[in-house]
C-alpha cells in the first residue's frame, strides 16, 4: 500500500483534512474539525504522528488543538499560554511547530511559547520577549504576530523566528537570548538608514542543504541568506512585485523555492492583474519562473496568506495553496501545472502537507 498525502488546511471556520494517495489526482475532504474554531496553522509532528492546530475563538480565546488520530478527534489546551495576569492579553495562536520532542507556538501579541508535554501545558520563552528591541515592536496589518518558527534540524538549542512587523531573530542557546537577523532587508516604510528591527518579514523558511541557508518573503522583497540571517541579499529580481505573503522551500534541492507575488499592499493585495501564478526559482533566487498553467488568468482577485502555501516531500514535489476565497489548489509537478481541489471551503488561512506511511 502506498503512502497517503494529507493536506492540513486551517480556515476561518475550522480545520480540514484533505487526503489523496501518492498520485495526488483525486482528493477527499474531511471537516470541519477543531469545532469550527478559526484555525491559523495546522502542523504534523513526524516524531509522534500527531497533528497540532493553533487558533483562537472570539469567545473562548486562543488555544492549541491536538489530534492523535490524524484529525478524527481533537483535544485542546492553553494552560500556561499567558504573559501573566499583569501582561498583555494573548489574542491568538498564529503558528504551531513541533521539533525535537517539543511543540512551539507563536502568538499575538508576538511571543513564543514551548510545550514539553505534547501541548498539554505551555511555558513562555521569555528570552525573546526580553529582547531590548521589544518596546519598539510595531504590528503589521495582521497584528503583532509571531508567524514563522524555523527550528534547526539537529540542534534543539538553535532556532529562528519571524515577527511582523519586527523581523527575524535567532537563538543559539535554547531561547535564553536572541539576536536580530535583519541586515540587508529593506524597511521602506521607515525613513532613514535601516534599523536593527522593524522589518516586515511575511514568511521565513529554511533550505534543505544547511541550516544557515534561509529564504524570506518580506513586505519589501524576497531575500536569501547563507549565514543564518547575519546578512540578507535581495533576490526579488524578475518577480512581478516585491510584495507577497507565503514562501516554500524545496525539501531536497536548496536552489528551489516558491513564492506568490501579490499586488502592492496599498493596491488590493491580490493576484497581480487578476492573473494567478506561483513563481519558483530553480537557481537559488537568481531568477524566477512563472507557473500558471491551470490557474485562472482573469478575475483571480484573491490573496494567499503567509501560511497558506505548503509542499509535500514526494518526487516531483507537490505544491499546494489556499485562497482567501476558499479555493484549494494543487500541483503534483512542483508548481508547473495546477488543478483546483475545491472552491467551497471557508477563507483559507493555512495549508501544510504531510506524507503518511501506513
Amino acid at each position, binding site marked *: 500500500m502506498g503512502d497517503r498525502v494529507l493536506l492540513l488546511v486551517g480556515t476561518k471556520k475550522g480545520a480540514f483534512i484533505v487526503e489523496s494517495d501518492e498520485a495526488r489526482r483525486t482528493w477527499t475532504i474531511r471537516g470541519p474539525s477543531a469545532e469550527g474554531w478559526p484555525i491559523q496553522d495546522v502542523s504534523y509532528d513526524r516524531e509522534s504522528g500527531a497533528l497540532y492546530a493553533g487558533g483562537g475563538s472570539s469567545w*473562548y480565546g486562543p488555544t492549541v488543538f491536538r489530534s492523535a488520530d490524524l484529525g478524527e478527534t481533537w483535544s485542546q489546551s*492553553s494552560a500556561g499560554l499567558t504573559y501573566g495576569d499583569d501582561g498583555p492579553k494573548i489574542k491568538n495562536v498564529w503558528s504551531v511547530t513541533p521539533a525535537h520532542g517539543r511543540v512551539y507556538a507563536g502568538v499575538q501579541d508576538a511571543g513564543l511559547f514551548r510545550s514539553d508535554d505534547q501541548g498539554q501545558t505551555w511555558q513562555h520563552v521569555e528570552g525573546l520577549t526580553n529582547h531590548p528591541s521589544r518596546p519598539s515592536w510595531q504590528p503589521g496589518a495582521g497584528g503583532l504576530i509571531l508567524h514563522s518558527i524555523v527550528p534547526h534540524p539537529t540542534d534543539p538549542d538553535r532556532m529562528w523566528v519571524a515577527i511582523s512587523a519586527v523581523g527575524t531573530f535567532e537563538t543559539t542557546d535554547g531561547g535564553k537570548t536572541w539576536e536580530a537577523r535583519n541586515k540587508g532587508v529593506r524597511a521602506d516604510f521607515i525613513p532613514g538608514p535601516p534599523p536593527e528591527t522593524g522589518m516586515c518579514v511575511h514568511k521565513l523558511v529554511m533550505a534543505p542543504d544547511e541550516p544557515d541557508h534561509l529564504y524570506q518573503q518580506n513586505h519589501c522583497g524576497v531575500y536569501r541568506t547563507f549565514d543564518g540571517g547575519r546578512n540578507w541579499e535581495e533576490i526579488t529580481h524578475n518577480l512581478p512585485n516585491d510584495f507577497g505573503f507565503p514562501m516554500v522551500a524545496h525539501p531536497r534541492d536548496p536552489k528551489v523555492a516558491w513564492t506568490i507575488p501579490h499586488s502592492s499592499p496599498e493596491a488590493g493585495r491580490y493576484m497581480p492583474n487578476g492573473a494567478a501564478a506561483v513563481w519558483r526559482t530553480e537557481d537559488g533566487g537568481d531568477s524566477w519562473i512563472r507557473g500558471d498553467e491551470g490557474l485562472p488568468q482573469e478575475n483571480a482577485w484573491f490573496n494567499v496568506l503567509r501560511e497558506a502555501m505548503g509542499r509535500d516531500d514526494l518526487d516531483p514535489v507537490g505544491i499546494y495553496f489556499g485562497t482567501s476565497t476558499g479555493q484549494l489548489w494543487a500541483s503534483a509537478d512542483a508548481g508547473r501545472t495546477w488543478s483546483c481541489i475545491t472552491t467551497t471551503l471557508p477563507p483559507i488561512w493555512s495549508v501544510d502537507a504531510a506524507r503518511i506511511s501506513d
Partner: protein
Amino acid sequence: MATVHLPSSLALVVPELPKIATVEGSTVAEVVAALDERWPGVGDRVLDAGPTIRRHINVFVDGEPAALDTAVGDASVVHVIPAVAGGAGERS
C-alpha cells in the same frame, strides 16, 4: 451549591462538561475555579489574563449581569453565555 448553565459550544472543547453543573462558590470567580477543578480547561476558556471574564463571554447571576467579584448564593442560578458579538474573526 450554585446551579451553573453552560453553553453547549463550550462542552465541545471541554470533555464531559455538562450543560448544567452544580458547584460551590461564593463569587463568580470561585464558581469558575470550582468548574475548572472538576473540568480542567474551563477557566482558560471563560477567563482572560487579569483575570477578567473574556470580552465576548457574558455571565449572569440570578438574571443580572455579573463580574468576577459578584456574590453567588447557595440557591443562585449562574448563566455563562457567549455574546451575540464576537464572530467576525480577523486576518489580513
